[in-house]
């Protein structure tokens, strides 16, 4: 029973982080049609910024907030500085074919990932370092019993839950949220409604940048921070996004939690070295059984 609870709580808190990564990927995929391989590079970079600030005696919370804001700015910068100029180059026949249109941004995102890793190496020497947690990472005790959950796990679950609630309110209750859903579903009708689709797209890059920056801040107290730490997180997050249907925000979050449980249970009941095999098997099963994703069907696509 105790190992079950251990796996369950670890799965929930890890799944919450995967959900954030997956949400970030789906936001940019829906909003801009790009699979952003640089996403966790952006998160790594902003986590380094937070780490630097904490070293310079800033409080954890001010570093936390500044990292999130830099995540948003970095996301917007990637769109405005690289993706938008790439997509508006109309005079080349090569760039105009449909397959190149979808491939070029993906290659560009890999390039951005490389640049961010190199910059992190230059600025912070690329050595692995710890990243602090705002609450204890030791197991909680209730009376004389050890609980299978740490204070930091609760913190992660709470922060992600709050983020998801705010995101849901933003998408379903605000005009800007409606504009974002509409531009993802039908850019032409949205433009004909007078909405600046380009700005909406930049906004989805910014929100995605914030979500992945948050994921970086929440995962590094357990994994430490180096230019390559977050690469695995991208793979798991991408799997979660595909399992969730790639176009559904709710599906991406669900996919994140499911993957969290799969990984945690394999870790506890099998062995850590089987985790990647399990992810692969799970992805293949999901693609065979529900290629459109858990929530990828048309009716439930609305957030």
């Amino acid at each position, binding site marked *: 029973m105790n190992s079950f609870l251990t796996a369950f709580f670890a799965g929930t808190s890890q799944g919450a982080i995967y959900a954030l990564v997956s949400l970030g990927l789906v936001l940019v995929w829906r909003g801009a049609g790009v699979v952003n391989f640089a996403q966790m590079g952006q998160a790594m970079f902003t986590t380094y910024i937070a780490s630097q600030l904490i070293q310079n005696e800033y409080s954890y919370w001010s570093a936390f907030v500044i990292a999130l804001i830099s995540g948003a700015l970095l996301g917007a910068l990637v769109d405005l500085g690289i993706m938008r100029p790439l997509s508006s180059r109309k005079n080349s026949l090569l760039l105009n074919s449909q397959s190149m249109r979808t491939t070029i941004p993906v290659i560009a995102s890999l390039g951005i990932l490389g640049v961010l890793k190199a910059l992190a190496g230059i600025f912070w020497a690329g050595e692995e370092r710890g990243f602090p947690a705002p609450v204890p990472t030791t197991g909680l005790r209730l009376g004389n019993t050890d609980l299978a959950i740490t204070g930091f796990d609760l913190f992660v679950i709470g922060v992600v839950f709050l983020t998801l609630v705010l995101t849901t309110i933003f998408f379903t209750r605000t005009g800007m949220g409606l504009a974002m*859903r509409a531009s993802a579903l039908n850019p*032409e*009708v949205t433009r*004909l*409604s*007078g*909405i600046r*689709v380009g700005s909406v797209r930049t906004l989805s890059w910014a929100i995605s940048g914030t979500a992945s920056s948050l994921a970086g801040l929440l995962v590094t107290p357990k994994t430490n921070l180096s230019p390559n730490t977050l690469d695995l997180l991208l793979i798991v997050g991408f799997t979660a996004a595909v399992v969730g249907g790639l176009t559904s925000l709710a599906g991406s979050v669900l996919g994140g939690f499911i993957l969290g449980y799969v990984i945690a249970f394999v870790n506890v009941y099998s062995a850590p070295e089987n985790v990647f095999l399990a992810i692969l098997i799970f992805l293949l099963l999901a693609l065979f059984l529900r290629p459109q994703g858990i929530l990828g069907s048309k009716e439930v696509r*609305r957030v």
Partner: protein
Amino acid sequence: MLKVSNLVTEFASIKALNDISFQAKPGRITTVIGANGAGKSTLLRTISGLERPTSGSITWFDEELTDKSVEAIVRSGVAQVPEGHAVISQLSVAENIELGGLFRKRQARGDLEIATKDVYELFPILFERRREPAGSLSGGERQMLAISRALVARPKLLLLDEPSLGLAPLISAQIISIVDELCKSTGLTVLLVEQNANTALAVADHGILLALGKVVADLPAKELIADSALRAAYLGY
């Protein structure tokens, strides 16, 4: 008034619009007819900014529309209802209507509420079904929704691209007569593109016949209806 002068729009060196000039009178319906491929949709898409003209100009009263972005053109009072009952089927009916007025939510919240009430009064069926996804509507209701989305922006000029496409004659006649009433009661200017010429010309002030990207006739609508030789030559009936 809408003034189109010497408009040329090319797709990979094929001239979809070849030196088009005409004017549409304010507060009236101007109907553009022509066979498939005559350039009717391209004309509307060029006016609304979705296609860029190679040369020529489009002006709406004193405003030059030619090089403006789609969003800017909508914001200056020109709304297009694109071909094929273009609504966003995954969004609810109410969300589709809200989308049309979103850009002026901050400056004109009060008027937006009135405009929304107006379109629900114009098409009561949409009010009944406001919470349902637009994809569940019938073709006629979807066309009503597409028109409503454009109307909540309070346009001065409405560009309608084949509103009767795929609809039963009775329903398309009903939609066209509602547009006609709207023109008379609010002074809206309409540029209506149709393949189905008779109903569309019956409510129009002016008719323009397009063939292979050129204007072949620009006449009062009544004369265009009566000219059977012209119709036989260009429309085949």
